């Protein structure tokens, strides 16, 4: 079996850990198999860089199966690249043409400071989760799963929201760098289930205020988050968060 190969020009954002500013560097990616993922293509480029004694491009990655939420970069202006419902690790090079110039930038948001090159610090999401994205329950022997009944429709809705992998593409895609899709997904996935109801009020109260404090922008319903989310989380989760917030504030 022969594989098709392509040649590309990359414009990659390089920024040092200690520097407040960065800039673009040009690289050529030669003989890239179209069966490679985007990250594998970057691996090839990095191998060449290391062999020629240069600093490799830093980027985040972990499972490379599209489920961990670790990878991500803005490719040609779109979070995780041009393919819908796909993380960067699952974007394959067959979606690019030989001779293409690809611009690769990190997530850009005040709340996500750049660590190095394409790696950003997403601790802000951890802080939001720690402020309310959990349920409290007693440890010990697990009770029978069927003790708490959940309707299929509700379970499906909760699961759709729980599909959020916390990658930060919503913040990157939002023209206002808002984190509302992320917070909406978390508030919805826990709030829809009976186990999440007891803390629903404090959850939305605390998560929204933590989000605001960390310097994310405000939602202006541009819906860019929903179209660029690799898990297709709907802005209906944001609407549900808005309802939960009204309920929590006026009761």
């Amino acid at each position, binding site marked *: 079996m022969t594989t098709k190969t392509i040649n590309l020009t990359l414009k990659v954002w390089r920024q040092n850990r200690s520097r407040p500013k960065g800039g*673009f560097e040009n690289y050529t990616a030669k003989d890239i198999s179209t069966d490679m993922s985007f990250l594998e293509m970057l691996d090839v480029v990095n191998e060449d860089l290391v062999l020629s004694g240069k600093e490799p491009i830093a980027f985040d990655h972990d499972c490379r199966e599209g489920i961990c939420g670790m990878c991500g970069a*803005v490719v*040609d*202006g*779109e*979070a995780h690249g041009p393919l*819908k419902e796909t993380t960067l690790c699952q974007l394959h090079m067959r979606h690019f043409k030989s001779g293409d110039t690809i*611009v690769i*930038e990190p997530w*850009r*948001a*005040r*709340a996500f400071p750049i660590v190095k090159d394409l790696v950003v610090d997403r601790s802000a999401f951890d802080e939001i989760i720690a402020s309310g994205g959990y349920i409290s329950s007693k440890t010990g022997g697990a009770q029978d799963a069927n003790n708490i009944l959940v309707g299929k429709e509700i379970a499906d809705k909760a699961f759709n929201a729980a599909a959020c992998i916390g990658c930060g593409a919503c913040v990157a*895609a939002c*023209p*206002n*760098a*808002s984190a*509302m899709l992320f917070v909406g997904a978390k508030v919805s996935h826990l709030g829809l289930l009976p186990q999440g109801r007891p803390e629903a009020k404090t959850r939305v109260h605390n998560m*929204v*205020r933590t*989000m*605001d404090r960390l*310097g*994310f*922008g*405000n*939602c*202006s*319903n*541009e*819906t*860019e*988050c*929903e*179209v*660029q989310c690799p898990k297709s989380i709907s*802005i*209906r989760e*944001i*609407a*549900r*968060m*808005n*309802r*939960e*917030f*009204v309920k929590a*504030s*006026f009761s």
Partner: protein
Amino acid sequence: MNWFVDTFRTSLGKKFLMAVTGLGFIGFIIVHMMGNMTLFVGHEAFNAYVEKLHGYEALILVAEIGLLSLAVIHVTTGLLLFLGNRSARNVSYTVKKSGGGRNIGSATMPYTGFVILLFVILHLSNFSFVDTTDRTMYDVITATFSSWIYIIVYVVSVAAVAIHVRHGFWSLFQSLGLNHEKYMPALRMISIALAVIVGVGFGLIPIYIGIIT
């Protein structure tokens, strides 16, 4: 009242303020447009409408105070959101591309909003704070739209209102937490229809008065 102020200081609280005040303005422009339609009937009909309206002095005062309060809230909150959003993305992208979510309305909200604010000031100075002791309101309108500049300024401003409404209408329901697949497609369609109605309805007035009659 601390919890109350605190609620509207949050990002979500500000969205609610924008949504509720925006809904108030949409209600106002619909009524305003219906009244203005008498212009197409003729100058007697329009002057009769103006006279009738000015008969309800107390009601008008309440409406004016109400609209002014809405404007103060909508403009200040909008400005705070605009500045907050700008600072949230401290370094902008080199390649700016839409994934298909935003449209002309959503992408220009702060700017069309600013144009509308300037227009409202001009509009009030043209038709509200004018002396009508020895001329009718209809005369004031024909005098204003005898100028090409005013016709162009008004048509452009009305276009800004239409573009603002195109995103604002469906968006206010989303902000208030009202989004369900049952009715959201309808709200999106009404949003476009409303923008067209407002744009054509108000936009035709300067053209009709200034050019056709």
